[in-house]
């Protein structure tokens, strides 16, 4: 078997047992890697109903067959577990040197089980595996944690860590890497924290098995250079992802004031031009020639690495338009290990609830200093910080007053920075994203606003959502690679089967990946079904406020417009029909047979119903 190492490393932190296991070529071909491996392992090994923050949950680190091998842009790793935020399947990817080092230690998957008796970290050095005390850095932020590990292992080591948010089990704590990378929005950092696991470090120098290593080396180097040249020609990385902020403001899709508003006259103060002007450094992931990590000095003088989602949610969505203050909130989230999107969404919900008299408290939109204090409190679970650390949905349930409808989340995960007050297709993308309100699965908004009628709820939109899910949430999350060369500067998708085939020696086409992707999405839905047997199509709806006429803009390009509930339901039905899912949004028996998921479905039927 080429491409895959064929090895899984299993570490039980309760017993200290370390076990090297193998997996078959059939497993590799069926699930490819990354997200595919993670969902299959979690589905097989987690008993439904377990406590996500208990020792029975498992924390997975998984990569795919092209990961870590120089080519565009193969520095990504998937982290996954049952989510303490949503109660369902959860994962996320992040750029990290772990990607290559895990592979060079000889593994594609790390499974962490149990709970260490004392704060610990895991160190892999080729075949040596150690579980070591992390008491010295428990209570520290991710930057200090990384420095502490770099002093021991050198800066070239791969590191994943958590900050105080993970330690105190914030339900939206992330896993952190490098200068400002983060992944696992639905509380993957809390799962690490619940295991007393502060960090994972890996250093390996074994070769990664490849069918055509020389050919791949030449191709990968040449293609990385080409992508770099394409980026320079397009100018994309001058503003990176934050270039889109001005466009969102223009077309009334910017999150402003807990998504109550869709545009703001001060948005220019935090746009891509201002970000580029303030740049003091640029960071990126391994194997990348279009680095997107624009870094500026924050209000306190720290280096803060920003992208659009951070800025949209911690800036306009809180009505904070001082870029250095937005950078401060971003730096604090990165250091504490909070997800920036959920932090922005939850703080905005809190300010909105106070505004509406649905709770009492001291916080108003635009108050950056109080937002910082609330993040500090959340990291320690002090006062209202204890509630903030649990995300907007739980906060809404605590406040009552029907405030849940303006908790801007889907499946419990806060929505990313696209205000879909009148974007039916993007609302569907959020509603049907398999981990909750992420933009990463299907960023359909530019297609929707540029190539379709904005007010259409037609099957062309649901088909595009599925097409993008197959590419973004399927192909790239399984391989594991970054989607930016393709999605932002037009690097051809056809390149990825070429890399895959050169590395594995197989002869796959993109169609093979689409089927595998559908299998992964179906199994994720079965995971949810086992956990929540009563789920139905309401589970795939966006927040209720978007359906309310009273929430419509009163001026601007979408004045008077809002999502129509019956039409959204029709769009959702198009999605189900195209996916071959039933009216509840569960994969049909027929599809399950096509995808070869009969065994998994038989287990799901012990808990829920299939049609």
């Amino acid at each position, binding site marked *: 078997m080429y491409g895959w190492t064929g090895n899984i490393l299993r570490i039980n932190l309760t017993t200290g047992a370390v076990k090297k296991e193998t997996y078959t070529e059939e497993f590799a071909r069926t699930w490819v890697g990354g997200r595919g491996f993670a969902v299959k392992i979690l589905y097989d090994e987690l008993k439904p109903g377990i406590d996500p923050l208990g020792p029975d949950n498992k924390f997975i680190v998984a990569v795919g067959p092209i990961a870590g091998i120089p080519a565009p842009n193969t520095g990504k790793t998937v982290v996954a577990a049952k989510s303490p935020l949503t109660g369902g399947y959860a994962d996320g990817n992040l750029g990290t040197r772990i990607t290559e080092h895990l592979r060079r230690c000889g593994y594609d998957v790390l499974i962490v089980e149990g709970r260490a008796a004392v704060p610990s970290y895991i160190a892999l050095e080729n075949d040596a595996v150690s579980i070591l005390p992390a008491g010295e850095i428990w209570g520290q932020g991710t930057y200090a944690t990384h420095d502490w590990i770099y002093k021991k292992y050198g800066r070239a080591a791969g590191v994943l860590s958590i900050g105080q948010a993970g330690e105190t089990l914030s339900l939206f704590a992330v896993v952190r890497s490098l200068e400002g990378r983060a992944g696992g929005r639905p509380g993957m950092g809390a799962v690490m924290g619940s295991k007393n696991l502060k960090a994972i470090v890996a250093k390996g120098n074994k070769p990664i098995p490849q069918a055509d290593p020389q050919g791949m080396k030449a191709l990968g180097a040449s293609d990385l250079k080409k992508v770099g040249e394409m980026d320079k020609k*397009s*100018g*994309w990385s*001058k*503003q990176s*992802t934050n*270039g*889109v902020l*001005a*466009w969102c403001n*223009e*077309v*009334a899709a910017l999150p402003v004031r807990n998504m109550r508003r869709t*545009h703001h006259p001060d948005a220019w103060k935090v746009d*891509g*031009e201002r970000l580029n002007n303030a740049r003091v450094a640029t960071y990126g992931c391994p194997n990348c020639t279009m680095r997107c990590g624009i870094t500026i000095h924050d209000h306190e003088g720290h280096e803060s690495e920003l*992208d*659009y*989602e951070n800025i949209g949610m911690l800036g306009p969505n809180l009505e904070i338009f001082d870029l250095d203050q937005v950078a401060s909130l971003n730096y604090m989230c990165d250091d504490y290990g909070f997800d920036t999107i959920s932090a922005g969404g939850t703080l905005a919900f809190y300010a909105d609830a106070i505004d509406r008299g649905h709770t009492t408290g001291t916080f108003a939109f635009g108050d950056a200093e109080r937002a910082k204090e609330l993040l500090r409190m959340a990291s320690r679970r002090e006062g209202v910080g204890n509630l903030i650390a649990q995300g907007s949905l739980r906060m809404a349930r605590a406040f009552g007053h029907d405030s849940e409808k303006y908790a801007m989340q889907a499946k419990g995960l806060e929505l*990313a*920075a696209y205000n879909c007050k009148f974007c039916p297709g993007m609302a569907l993308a959020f509603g049907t994203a398999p981990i909750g309100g992420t*933009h990463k699965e299907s*960023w359909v908004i*530019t297609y929707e*606003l*540029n190539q379709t009628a*904005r007010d259409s709820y037609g099957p062309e939109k649901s088909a595009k959502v599925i097409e993008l899910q197959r590419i973004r949430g399927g192909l790239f999350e399984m391989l594991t690679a970054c*989607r*930016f060369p393709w*999605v*932002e500067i037009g690097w051809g998708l056809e390149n990825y089967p070429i890399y895959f085939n050169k590395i594995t020696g197989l002869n796959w086409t993109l169609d093979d990946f689409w089927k595998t992707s559908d299998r992964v999405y179906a199994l994720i839905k079965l995971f949810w079904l086992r956990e929540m047997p009563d789920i139905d199509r309401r589970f795939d709806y966006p927040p209720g406020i978007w359906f309310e006429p009273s929430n419509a803009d009163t001026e*601007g*390009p*979408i004045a008077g417009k809002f999502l129509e509930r019956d039409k959204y339901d029709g769009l959702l039905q198009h999605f189900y029909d195209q996916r071959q899912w039933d009216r509840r949004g569960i994969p049909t028996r027929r599809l399950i047979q096509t995808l070869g998921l009969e065994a998994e479905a038989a287990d799901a039927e012990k808990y829920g119903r299939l049609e």
Partner: protein
Amino acid sequence: MTVRVKLIGPLMYETGFSEKDLDVPAATTVEALLDLIAVPRQRPKIVTRNGRAVAPEEHLSDGDKIAVSPIYSGG
């Protein structure tokens, strides 16, 4: 007539400005405006007028705000 033109993302570095008012003849089309500010025709882009997508052949009106953006696809 006067129209407000906003260039988004890297287009502003190619054209040399990010936002300004331009005096253009009546009945100027979107395409003619893009030629005037030297946005290459072959460059993939999204053009909006007052926040809504607009076709190249459409005529501009006094006071319009035209935004020209690359086709962002991710984030």
